[in-house]
């Protein structure tokens, strides 16, 4: 059938574009991984296409960072995973509830609050770093986990994101739930959440990525070895004036793995959202 072949050609075109464009996007990540497998003296020697095909593969760089007694890479990794996961977990709950309240449970002042929240997203972190440090210090949280987690749970960006998507959820769905006798809380749990899986996944991924790469804040509030995050932990590789690029690339490769895994994990929630109703548009 003509229609069928046309569809097939379309699919092949899309597949090819994804792969070709995709390479342009992932090339640096691949370079990083291949560089981490090379001996130090060969890393910058060849910067052409052949840089992606190392001849002498070595795992020395990995051994150096994982099995040195100077730093505890696994422990740093755990600290990062723990604190960022807490931010994501509590963040999803707190921010989605807030957005739901602002959009669907309009209460006096909610319109103004929304404007303030959007305005707060404008604030660059660099400008509140010192005042925030003073606030957190007054709670006595320096060198404790809450300093890494609590300030970042509520997020103007995420509230704004949730709000935007909840607005798109058809009223009819809620009204139907209301008629069934569901309370607003139950409506949230039974209607809003199941119909918003993609945006929850997006918020989770973007929050995870943002805070996984945090450096400045964890450095300032967490000096102590015991709660040091991985981004801070691997900085010792840059500190010496003679920089070992192979080890840096190995460390960076290891720190990238969890983010990629998280990304793949949340991908499964990218299902078609509202298929049961054709009311939108």
């Amino acid at each position: 059938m003509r229609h069928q072949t046309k569809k097939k050609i379309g699919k092949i075109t899309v597949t090819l574009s994804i792969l070709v464009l995709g390479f342009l996007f992932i090339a640096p990540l691949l370079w990083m991984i291949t560089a981490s497998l090379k001996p130090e003296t060969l890393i910058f020697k060849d910067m052409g296409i052949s840089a992606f095909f190392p001849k002498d593969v070595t795992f020395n760089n990995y051994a150096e960072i994982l099995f040195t007694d100077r730093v505890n890479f696994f422990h740093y990794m755990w600290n990062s995973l723990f604190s960022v996961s807490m931010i994501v977990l509590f963040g999803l709950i707190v921010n989605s509830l807030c957005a739901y309240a602002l959009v669907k449970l309009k209460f006096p002042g909610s319109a103004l609050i929304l404007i303030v929240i959007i305005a707060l997203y404008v604030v660059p972190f660099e400008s509140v770093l010192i005042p925030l440090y003073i606030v957190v210090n007054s709670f006595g949280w320096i060198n404790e986990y809450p300093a890494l987690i609590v300030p970042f749970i509520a997020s103007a960006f995420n509230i704004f994101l949730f709000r935007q998507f909840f607005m798109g959820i058809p009223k009819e769905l809620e009204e139907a739930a209301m008629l069934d006798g569901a309370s607003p809380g139950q409506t949230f749990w039974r209607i809003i959440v199941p119909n918003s899986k993609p945006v929850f996944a997006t918020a989770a991924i973007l929050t995870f990525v943002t805070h996984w790469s945090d450096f400045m804040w964890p450095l300032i509030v967490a000096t102590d070895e015991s709660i040091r995050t991985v981004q801070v932990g691997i900085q010792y590789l840059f500190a010496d004036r003679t920089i070992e690029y192979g080890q840096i690339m190995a460390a960076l490769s290891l720190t990238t793995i969890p983010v990629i895994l998280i990304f793949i994990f949340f991908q499964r929630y990218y299902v078609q959202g509202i298929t049961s109703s054709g009311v939108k548009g």
Partner: protein
Amino acid sequence: MEKTFEAVPSTKKPMTYDTQKKWLGVAFSLPALVLLFTFLVLPVMLAFVYSFMNYNMLNPAGKEFVGFDNYIRLFQDAIFLTSLKNTMYFTVLVVPIQSAVALGLALLVNKKVKVAGLGRVFFFSPVVTSMVVVAILWTFLYNVDSGLINHMLHFFGIENQPFLLSPDQAMNSIIFMSVWQAAGFQMMIFLAGLKEVPEELYEAAEVDGANVWQKFRNVTLPSISHVTGFVLIITTIQAFRLFIQPYVMTNGGPSDSTKTLVFMLYENGFQFRDVGYSSAIAVVFFLIVLLSSLILKKALKQ
């Protein structure tokens, strides 16, 4: 209403759905609001107070109020005007380009092909790739003598371009790189939006004999308009906050051509430990971005 009940005020009336909604609204938003107040509003207010002070970060006891001195200095500072201009230039160019690229990528990986999932990982990967690696590699790509981009231009008979070394090209080079690096972020938001578009709409359009473009124009775009508006606003704000790319790749140069407002804010606040001046920059920055976002929002509504 039966009057008898009025005499017994303590009796709990079942709340109406609407009052229930109101109280629940307050209860649901409270945790976020308290946290935002403590860790964002409060620091912002502190920064606002500091902007009227001469405050050396190393000597907090010696800080003193100096009125509008920091603001007066700011508006006489040539670097401030340059930074403002650079930031505006970056924003005006990067927002439409990056949003369009992100939407294009989202449409591509929203198609039902086997490699779609892989594509998402690929396009998103620059977002998770360490800035250290990104900076090293793009500096190589932009290298005036041996960079890959110059090799390609050479192939087309164009002579070598200085890119990051030229005051005229450095910002454009950073724009190009930023689009590449950050488009995956916006792509994920668009993708969530595309998943919300009911399949039935496309089927209906197909029955009407719409082609690919018409489907995009008449079904996709209107269905995700709330997402597009969101993406445009957050991309604008993110663009205004440009800092890390010039910080690691050009250090604001050459000739201040990639110096941005947040760069200036960081430099004065941390490197020069001038908290007062840095806070004044932050306040002015905040007002500028807020104003721009409001204008954008108005424009989007029309």
